């Protein structure tokens, strides 16, 4: 199991972004809270097949 720090490093590398050293701690904290928020939302089975309401129109 990878730590959040390791996961974050991978995701940032894939994103092609290298945050300044002084931002690392804040981003790690945000990443960790983001994972918690995602878990909270994912825990609601009732939401699984709701329409995500992404806006797209075939009319140009």
């Amino acid at each position, binding site marked *: 199991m990878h730590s959040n720090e390791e996961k*974050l490093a991978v*995701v*940032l590398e894939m*994103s*092609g*972004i290298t*945050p*300044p050293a*002084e*931002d690392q701690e*804040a*981003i790690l904290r*945000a*990443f960790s809270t*983001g994972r918690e*928020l*995602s878990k*909270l*939302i*994912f825990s*609601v089975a*009732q*939401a*699984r*097949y*709701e*329409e*995500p*309401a*992404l*806006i797209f*129109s075939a009319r140009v």
Partner: protein
Amino acid sequence: MDAYALSITQASELIAAGELSPVELTESVLARIEYAEPHLNAFVEVTADLAMIAAKAAEVEIAEGGYRGPLHGIPLGVKDLYETAGIRTTSSSKVRADYVPDTDSTVVQKLLGAGMIMVGKTHTHEFALGGVTPTTRNPWHTGHIPGGSSGGSGAAVASGECMVGLGSDTGGSIRMPAALCGTVGLKPTYGLVSRRGVASLSWSLDHVGPLTRTVRDTALVMDAIAGYERSDPASLDLVPQSYTADLDHHAGDDLTGLTVGVPSNFFFDDVDEEVDAAVRAAIGQLEFLGARVVEVTIPMAQYISAAAQLIVRAEAAAYHRRMMRASGDLYTEQVRRGILAGEVVLATDYIDALRMRTLVQREWSAMVIGAGVDVIAAPTCPIPAPPADLGTRTWASGLVEDLGRAVGRYSAPANIMGLPGLSVPVGLSSGGLPIGMQLMGRPFEESTVLRVGQAYEQTKATALPVLAL
């Protein structure tokens, strides 16, 4: 009374009657700006010369019989996220320090078309990513924040530096500065007002709208800016309506027949005692005016903020993706970190958050219809304006909360569900800082929300004063 202290309704009657000229009014407002700006710093840029040219043109046009309506000759402050032709639009960021758009955003175009006089561009929390607006101070106490992200507009309207301030609201950014600065602020229903030409924070939660000193003034602005526009994908083609005519139609009525829902959870959780008391007293006034008041339970409250945070993070990171890579060092530290936090939201988590929004919307609708509620009344912010150095507060629940975040804790529901949300001033704290009540209506029921807001406003002996600094 100095001209700058008039409401739009008062000033427009005088202008229409030839008793006040747009030049006199603009001069009064510009003098007020000169006086107040060293204390407030509400404006990124004051466009005094352009304003005087426009005011003189308005004066001539009106004298020649070309009066355009109640916004003709009225001074306007424009949040610096709104594009303005030939005038810098910086989003209060070094990233866009030299950006000069070729065209006006739709809302600005409509208001200038109605004859308004733009006096300048107001400060925003950088790219609207925050509820503080650190550049600007609160006119009620300059040691405190004005709220954000439309903090420049809130401070400017409250202090008499303009009569309308344009704002945008992704997580409370119109309603929060309205509450903390003691003005009226309306976040219209999602899709009612075009966002074309306004820098995005999170396109599925972004709304644009006005801050003014009275509810009727807000209705006057809404009459001019609501409407369909194809180039905003969220815009809806609806039958136009006059919010002012609706308000005036009900002007002498009480609130009999309307139902006000008062939340038993979420909105009064961890709230300052003085805010709680002021808002409950205002709700008591609504009941006195004939409204039926019922208790409601906010459904799925714990998921609303979670979904909003994930959506904002992901969409903000997408919007800033190129700029962050090209000029990341130009962002302020707090905003850069906020945007980078969105770089690491997974696509699947973003979609889940959008699905959650749909579920919450359905549950909210069931609650509103089930209880027969027309508006929900609650505090706009849990606290009055905190000091500029922010700090934390420990609540009775044990929650230790950063005050810069606390101001926005009650904002997300109206954004997530795209509902109309009006903040009206309901009093002052013992420290002399304004308190706001938030009225949330059913989608596209702005008229009802404004009616309730105005009915409350008219119970007060006098309007909030334009402030002496």
